[in-house]
């Protein structure tokens, strides 16, 4: 069946069964490869995207359930999000495979909580696995970016 999706502000038509996970529509139909497959059961967070601003695991989001919801993927951050600059500044990635999901979870956190505490970071980020163990740099980069976000908001 043909389904219309709004992804990163652009309307896209895709041919997919309604029960197909959004992850595989993004990847196999649209070849938007920034969103990663890690577990398929919402345990690792590598596939995190935003649906109407909320972080969701796209591997457990049937494409037929999205409707008119606005989808934002890592590509939608445009490379200019303060978190992305902070990720580079702190050399957060190692293998890098989980980082799209980490950044999407962190972006949702900062949007809701501009100055997150350690407990806020634990709560928002513990669904995103990093087998390379870049956790302390992820935490530092979020805190650093939260300062930058505050400055941007003032300007």
């Amino acid at each position, binding site marked *: 069946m043909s389904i219309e999706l709004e992804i990163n502000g652009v309307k896209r038509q895709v041919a997919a069964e309604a029960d197909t996970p959004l992850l595989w529509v993004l990847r196999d139909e649209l070849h938007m*490869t*920034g969103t990663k497959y*890690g577990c*398929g059961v919402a345990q690792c967070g590598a596939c995190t995207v935003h649906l109407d601003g909320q972080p969701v695991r796209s591997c457990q989001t049937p494409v037929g359930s999205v409707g008119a919801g606005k989808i934002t993927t890592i590509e939608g951050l445009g490379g200019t999000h303060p978190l992305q600059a902070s990720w580079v500044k702190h050399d957060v990635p190692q293998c*890098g495979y989980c*980082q799209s999901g980490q950044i999407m979870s962190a972006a949702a956190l900062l949007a809701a909580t501009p100055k997150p505490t350690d407990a806020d970071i634990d*709560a928002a980020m513990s669904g995103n696995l990093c*087998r390379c163990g*870049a956790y302390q740099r992820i935490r530092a980069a979020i805190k650093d970016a939260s300062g930058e976000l505050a400055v941007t908001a003032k300007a």
Partner: protein
Amino acid sequence: MYIAPEKTRTPSGGQGASRRELIVGAALVGGSLLVGCSPADIMGAGAPKTDFGAFGPFIKIDADGAVTVMNKHQEMGQGNHAGLSAIVAEEMDADWSTVKVQHAAANAKVYANSLMGVQGTGGSTAIANSWMQLRTAGATARAMFVQAAADAWKVPAAEVTVKDGVVSHASGKSAQFGDLLADAAKVTPPKSVKLKDPKDFTLIGTERVRRKDSLAKATGQARYTQDVYLPDMLTAVVAHAPRFGGKVKSFDDTAARKVPGVVDVFAIATGVAVVANGVYAARKGREALKVEWDDAKAESRSSAEMLADYHRIARGELTPSDDKWAPFTTKGDATGQFDGTDVLHATYDFPYLAHATMEPMNCVAQVDGSKCKLTYGAQGHSLDQMAAAMVVVNLPGAIEIETLFAGGSFGRRSSWDSDYVVEAVQIAKHVGRFRPVKLVWTREDDMTAGHYRPMAHHAVAVKVGKDGYPAAWRHRVVVQSFAKASPMMASMMVKNNVDSTTVEGTAGSPYLAATPVVDAQVFTPHSPVTTLWWRSVGATHTAPVMEHTIDQLAARAKIDPVEYRRELYRRAGEAGARHLAVLNLAVEKAGWGTLEDGWTRGVAVHESFGSVVANVCEAKVIDGEPRVRKVTVAVDCGIAIAPNQIAAQMEGGTCYGLSAALFGQVTLDKGRPQQTNFDTYRVLRQNEAPQVETWIVPSAHPPSGVGEPGTPVIMASLPNALFAATGKPVSSFPLVKA
């Protein structure tokens, strides 16, 4: 008697040597008809003739003067893109900010790992084996630019200087690499070049050496195997036998073929392949498939039964006919030494561990007749080329490999049997016509496919002298050997029936060097369950065994565990010198002694892959589970090229080891793995990760690796911290029981 090579301080370290031997073995067997050829010649046989340009196979220079370094290794997170390109930039005096790096093609003739003989990444050797090679390449390119400038400006070459990609002369003349490129490319490369004195390094060892791939990885633009989409590409999944050693008896694909998007279903050596348009259709096709399995030769025991067998073997109550006890360190007469009351007995159990890389195994293959191209996160290039060549019947060097980033490996992507690569090639061969096929393993495929860190059991008895220190040490290790799983590997990696990867870290331990009488032996029972190197390999069990035993001995002698180690390192002499230095640095930076609120400190020190690491961790049991809040690491890895990335590897290695120590285990029920995904194979999460602080021992020695050596130390310091709190020794892993 086996003496581990670590103490000779070869850049390869113990495991590097093992892997080198393994791959040389592979090459020799594969090329047994080509007597007289080097392994690189054999693995490179059939490689296309390539013009690498004026500056050789490691350096490309664009018209604008931008330098690109070709990385012959796999960048799987360990940061060698940064470290290797920094070595070139340093000797070339290139502008580091514009230096680029990319993965090189597979070609053993030019890109062999000089510590392995053929192309491959492992044993924490990437920096160590490239050190002189890339310094020479960079210095040679620099000399060519200097000569070109000297000729153009008619000044002596000795008066020409280079800094940040700008070539200058005191007369005021200056030029960019790009300006001189055409002339420099015509200069005959000098036969020998003078390398910098390390004290003159301006880039190496500084905070400026940072990753080159962080932006690509922070924007979703870095390309992994999973991200390959080629025209007309198919996606394949495979129904694998539920038990190790199982085979397809029969299958019914009627329903599978009716699934929309499914293109073909066929048997391959390891199961039944379902080929489809996209992952979702392929998976649905596999779900609809009915397969009957032949388990006649499959593992049918539970892991608990296997471990019980290991205990009986260690006690001498069971001796399976497929192996015999092999001594690996023997000193003095151990007869009757361990019967008295002055003996400490300790046993340890270690489960199977999955690597659980974030990107499950996958590979894109294209085959047309004997022509074959692979696009994936290659780590064992030459071994994979040989394995693929055997499927398509070609020379190994003719197998083209385009290397992409790997979403983690920890050893998994370089498997001795090239398992997932061979699957992809078999499927692409069946599909034919060079049509691209992406083999996708689901998380469940990946986690149940074995190649685990082997299950292990250690039984230790130490006779304590009147001074409280070891007088005699008996050590029994029961562990599967992956080297012995293949006759080819066994022929090269196993000496006197000892697979060095099963005992490294006990063999070569400074504690055994400090003990007058030693009787250490290993037994390697067979199972169809496949095992493999797993970040830091043998040290994953030998480090916790040696270090936790030392803490128990220190407690028995009522001596502080730091002081106890210092004394043993002194007794060990040269074998303990670097251990003593990292121990002292870690303790100095971490502090030592009693903490508040029930937190306790634990210390451990271990050498692997030529590097020595100590750490002090702070731990406490909270809500029934051990937590670690801080880890202070000291590392001696020779000359530190990229301090920021050394720290990253100590942070990551510590988390990887901590995850395994706390939670990691694959258990079998009637031969079937019980953990299939992250809901049952628990791994460390953000809220459980400690703060890791890294201190580097200044060194003038050639660099050794950092990818693995940080991992095993936390697996030892954490049990020691818990022992300090409770007085109860740890005897089995993981610490958190499911």
